[in-house]
């Protein structure tokens, strides 16, 4: 009995530690953005460290972006969105999760960096290195627009699964899995602006010129 109590206490302690762990960094905000931690609104600045179960909400014409601590994933929230972020260390990788209650969220994930799951009120999407957009309506209806890579969807109620590939849009409706090609005009201006980023790798090589002054060569590949 004592042993069980000790194990429970250890788990709770570890959970508390994990809950308190820093999981991401708030890299950019614009407009009306709020951050909640343990049900309390928090004041924050650019570069704020985000903890497990932090809730981010964006208002009208607002934007927020954050990156996970393993530097593998970037998530961008468009206007009128509400997400809860979490992550746990899984072996030597970070298992990441984004719970999207409403709004449009763009995710960019590097492959081979640990599981990445996006959960909406109706669907769970497991991602394996990709770029995709999650849209959740006011009634919780969800669709996933995949730009690159592949996303596996699972309907929370029925357990049905489906795969959405690059250039496709997928969703569950009435127990049915629907997938089709994403139309060319399938993105709003706000979404297009938020997804545009120079995500190429950049290498900076410092050197000294003949006058002894420090200069840099920047290579993007």
């Amino acid at each position, binding site marked *: 009995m004592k042993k069980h109590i000790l194990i429970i206490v250890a788990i709770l302690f570890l959970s508390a530690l994990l809950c308190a762990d*820093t999981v991401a*960094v708030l890299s*950019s905000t614009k407009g009306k953005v709020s951050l909640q931690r343990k049900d309390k609104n928090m004041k924050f600045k650019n570069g704020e460290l985000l903890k497990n179960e932090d809730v981010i909400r964006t208002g009208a014409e607002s934007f927020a972006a954050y990156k996970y601590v*393993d530097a593998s994933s970037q998530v961008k929230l468009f206007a009128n969105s509400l997400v809860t972020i979490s992550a746990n260390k899984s072996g030597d990788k970070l298992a990441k999760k984004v719970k999207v209650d409403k709004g449009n969220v763009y995710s960019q994930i590097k492959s081979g960096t640990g599981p990445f799951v996006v959960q909406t009120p109706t669907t769970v999407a497991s991602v394996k290195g990709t770029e995709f957009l999650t849209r959740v309506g006011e009634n919780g209806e969800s669709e996933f627009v995949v730009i690159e890579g592949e996303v596996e969807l699972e309907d929370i109620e029925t357990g049905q699964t489906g795969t959405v590939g690059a250039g496709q849009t997928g969703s569950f409706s009435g127990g049915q899995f629907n997938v089709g090609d994403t139309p060319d005009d399938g993105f709003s201006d706000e979404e297009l602006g938020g997804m545009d980023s120079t995500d190429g790798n950049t290498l900076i090589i410092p050197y000294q010129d003949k006058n002894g002054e420090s200069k840099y060569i920047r290579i993007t590949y």
Partner: protein
Amino acid sequence: MKKLLLTPAFFLAVFMLFGATALHVVPKDIVPGKDAELLLEITSGEADISAINIVYNVIESSISEKEPMRPESEDKVYWRGIIPKKVMMASAIEYRFEMTLKNGQSVMYPEESGMTEPFVLRPMAPSGKLSRDFVLISDEEIVSADEGYVLAVSFFAIADVIDSTSIKIYVDNSDVTSKATIEGSILLYRETRPRVGLRSAIVTAKIKGENVYSETWTTQVTPGKLSSYIPFDYRGTINFAANIYDVKKDDLVLDSSLFGDNQQDYSTWADLYASYGPVDVETHLLFSSLENKNEQPVNRMMLGVMLPFINAYWGDYSPNLSDFTLRGKNVRGIYVDLFAQYMKLIVSHGEAVRKTIDEDSMTGTFKQESFGSRLQFGSDNGLRFAFNISRHRDIINSLDEAYYLRMNAVGDTTYAVTAKDNAVASFDIRLNVPDQNVMFGAEVAGSLLNTNTIPGILTDDEMEEYLGIELPITLENLTDLFVINKNMEPFIPSKSNVALNAYARMYIWNNLINVQYSSVGSAFNSYGSFFQANDTKTLSVSDQLTIGRFLMLYGGFSKTEDNISKFNTETNIYENIFAQMVLRIPNLPYLKASYFDNVGENSPMDEDDPMTAAMFMPNHQKSRNMSFGLGYNFTMIPYVPSQLDLSYRLGNSSNERAASLDDDLELISDNKTNGISVTMLNRFSILPLKTHFSYSNYKTENILSDKTQTNNSFYAKADYSLWEDRIIPFVSYRNNSLSGSTQKLAYNYFNAGIDCFPIKDLSIGLDVGSKSFTNANDSDQNYSSTTLKFLVTQRF
């Protein structure tokens, strides 16, 4: 942040100043986060030097700071000093050495002549391996100042193996670790109101004892729409020191000053530098218990404000107008420098001091009213010319009458010392052509000196009776400008109170050539400038050749001749030739050598004049000195990497004299000297122990009397670092002995102490020392003393 680059910063320079020469090799093994140790070797003339400071500043910063150097031994051949680690975190540092001679003159090495660059120290690249496991999360390349500067770096992949206490974050070469947050596997540094411009950052750490460092990340911070933030930077030091002496002789406790030791003293001083946008402020304060109104002032107070078009200083300052008017003297008052692109006006007014000494060796100090002004036109990078004036007038009632009034045997009042009045006016011109690396310049000055202003001015009637002519002006109206009476030297200004200096400098094919001619009249005096040899002309030529970064050759010739006024019956001529060489090949010891040859002789003004010939005694002096040396950093010695410097000197000096022109020269003195100096610094790698040894042995042999005198000096010091350099106890021993045919003297010093650095930038030092003096020939002179020195320094 600029990546910390490994730059084998190499600069050798040799400097010659009035017979003192110095040599400095820029260290290349500078470790970030540690003090930069600098070693300066005085190759000749060390006896003339009283103090040396390192004057340094961050490149492109106008604020310079000073750190004192300490001689390693009594012979003052090697001097050591540091540039503090707090400064070494910044981008490249440039520095010079400020050498103060015993006559009060201070000059910089290298000179601030506009053609000689200062020494430069560039921080090294971090040691270890580049690690790509430091990943930048805040990767915005361009941010607005309104958003703030954010550095967020993830080390998730190495979180389990990294030593988190070893993580250091550098932004723009400054260590900002204490201002950053490290949580889990992420570190975050933030500036809410950042400086606009290119910012660079790097992270270093240790993984299983091995050093690693990240890439260098740069971010451009652009001006924001909100009111721009002007950073307020400040730094400085506050110090307190106490020196307590206790002398014992024959079981009596006596006043230490009786035995040549310093008086007990307590002092506190502070240096503060601050900048806010275009405004720089500098403050220096020194208060000492040694302050005595009848002696040279010790206390110092100065407040300086520097703005884009004006620099103003209140308090103690050393104005620099021109070579002949005002240079190198401390003036306590106000100094204002108004400058624009092609014009400059400098005004200095305040109080200086002049030491006096009478026939009975009684010393006093006159306060002087000092005034100086310079009006300059032109550009420093082209043609410029200027008019300068200076005036120094002793304030008679600033000195107690006891110091200057005497009564002679018949009851008349005489003056042991007199109050003087001195005025100098000069014109200087300089042409600088940077593209051609040539510079020409000249200054001509005239002076007036009144050797005794105590009787006051002459009335107009007295002056007219003295001169025999009617004066167009009223002398009383000129009192504020100059006191005119019969004590003026000369009474009527002439060529004898004119001085001239002309020079040409050029840099051609790696040769820095300097040609200089100066001529000082027999009655020229300038109390605002350093000592000028009257009635003398000097021509000097020197050339410094630098071949790559490996070889430096320096040589020159100078000739000095006095009696240019032809008033004296004989003329003295001194000729000096010198040559120096430094050879430094990477990974090999550096070699140095020098040679000095001085010859002086006199000649009669008119050999055919029987009276001149009868009084003339030919005199011929010669001296020759050579030195050789080498130095090396033995990093390959296991467990104890060591730095070694070794010098050997030899020389001889002789004096020949004859009773008259017709007699042969007879040798009246002939001395030979030779000696060796060694200094070694050992840094143990397996223990936090550093040892320092210095030994010198100099022998002087008088050939005529067959007497030999040997001067030995030995110094050893060990310090042990505890608790990551927070506590460093040390012990040191020094022995100076003078032994010869007629005397054997010895000083022994034993010191033990501790340097503590309990919190960041605070240092507390305690040094307890024991000194003993023994005279083998006269034990009555033996004595011992104990000293206690306490120093607290807080940097901020």
